[in-house]
């Protein structure tokens, strides 16, 4: 903190080698009014550097819980998560989360929100921080809305700001918890394109939770299918399609129908398992 200020905006914007996640034997149990739910049952998962992994499954299958455990916001009952070989013991700037609701701070304007995580990096000067924030606002196409208040933005714009805020501290892992679920189809499609472009440009490792099979097939290199109660990885698919992918393409549809078949295999009725 008291060292010389060697870092500059250009250095801050440099691409860092993405990290690797290793999830080893992670289990998590929740006590509810109706009894115990085994949200995660000995989950093992390796996420390669720069991979885009989607976790799909019906609600209550524990995919969000797993994401929170990787983020360090929740602790597993057993097992461990390694990020870059180091055990995860709590939340950290190397693994930023994008939530379903944007979780933007209404007391700050758009620029202030993107600046927030940068202010927590003591090695940056204020000018660096502003430059970095501007860079990411441009990346998500919101330069014009720098001074807008959060409530003035549409749902899609809010998620763009949330994405810029998550990217700003240059995390190596981006954890996304159904970030587009509340958006309309058109906005979502735009964001699929943007996210793929940004992922490629900024070389992040992304773990993306969704219940939308098509979305998973569109975005992920790998799609992991979760089954609920106990939460397990039921199936895995490699999506071998060129990028950028279009959510409406025929090839993608064949992938998503394969995933859908597998999903229906263990989930005959549309399950709303209480958690």
């Amino acid at each position, binding site marked *: 903190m008291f060292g010389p200020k060697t870092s500059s905006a250009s250095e801050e914007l440099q691409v860092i080698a993405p990290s690797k996640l290793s999830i080893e034997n992670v289990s998590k149990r929740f006590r509810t009014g109706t009894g115990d739910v085994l949200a995660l049952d000995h989950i093992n998962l390796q996420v390669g550097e720069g991979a885009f992994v989607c976790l799909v499954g019906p609600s209550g299958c524990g995919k969000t819980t797993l994401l929170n455990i990787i983020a360090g916001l929740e602790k597993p009952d057993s097992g461990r998560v390694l990020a870059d070989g180091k055990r995860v013991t709590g939340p950290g*700037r190397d*693994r930023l989360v994008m939530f379903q609701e944007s979780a933007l701070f209404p007391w700050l304007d758009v620029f202030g929100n993107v600046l927030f995580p940068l202010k927590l990096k003591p090695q940056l000067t204020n000018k660096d921080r502003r430059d970095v924030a501007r860079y990411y606002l441009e990346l998500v196409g919101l330069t014009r809305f720098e001074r807008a208040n959060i409530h003035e933005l549409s749902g899609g714009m809010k998620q763009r700001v949330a994405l810029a805020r998550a990217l700003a501290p240059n995390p190596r892992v981006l954890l996304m918890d159904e970030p587009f679920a509340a958006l309309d189809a058109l906005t979502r499609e735009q964001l699929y394109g943007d996210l793929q472009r940004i992922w490629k440009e900024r070389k992040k490792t992304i773990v993306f939770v969704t219940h939308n099979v098509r979305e998973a097939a569109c975005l992920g290199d790998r799609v992991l299918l979760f089954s609920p109660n106990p939460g397990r990885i039921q199936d895995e698919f490699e999506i071998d399609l060129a990028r950028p992918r279009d959510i409406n393409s025929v090839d993608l549809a064949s992938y998503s129908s394969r995933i859908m078949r597998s999903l229906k295999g263990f989930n005959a009725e549309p399950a709303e398992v209480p958690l």
Partner: protein
Amino acid sequence: MRRFVSAAIFVIAMICLWHWIARLTNKPMLFPLPWQVWEYLKSAAEDGTLCQATLVTMRRLVVGYIFGIVVGLPLGLLTARWRVLQDTLGVLALGLQTLPSVCWVPLALVWFGQTEAAMLFVVVMGTLWSVIIATETGVRNVPPIYRRAALTMGSRRLHIWFKVILPAALPFIVSGMKQGWAFAWRSLMAAEIFVSILTGFGLGQLLQFGRDQSAMEQVVGIMVVIVVIGLLADKIFFSPVERFLHRRWGTS
């Protein structure tokens, strides 16, 4: 401008109505005419008593109010943070907030005598509890996702409290401060009417002197001054803050 004009017309109409009713009753000793009140205010302003009294009252109010906030805000935060404090101090604050702060006046007199400290005590009792409760409520209503988001961005403990939870609770805190101001103002007036403090005569005391001398134009004149000060405080201090909050949060 249009709003100003309509407000001005309203005030003039009220004065005319007042004048008319006062004329009808024709008992200037009991129901003074507007110009009598104006004459009193003018003479009191000229000989300095009004200005002096206003200063004395405002000093008591502002000092007590600031003290109440400086103590109440941290107590509210602590109450929201620890369950033990919520069950003890929180309940106490809730109970004492329902107590009209005039009820503190007799006790303040016994404890502090006819001193400034007694006045201050009453004002602080008027402010403190609503600030504590508003801060606690505000903090409890902060959506947990803000805290979680801040945690992932590397914010911890004190940083979270000052940069996330406190600003997120601001709308509640401001309305608590506004309520505290209203309570402080009421309790101070009651205390000043009840008690003569030799170290300074406030507006409440001027009002009471008016009654003692059966000078109703003085009583009404001081009432007008009190109303005007209340309005000014709202327009100058609270309104801009509330406007800012509405603009930022998008509530209105």
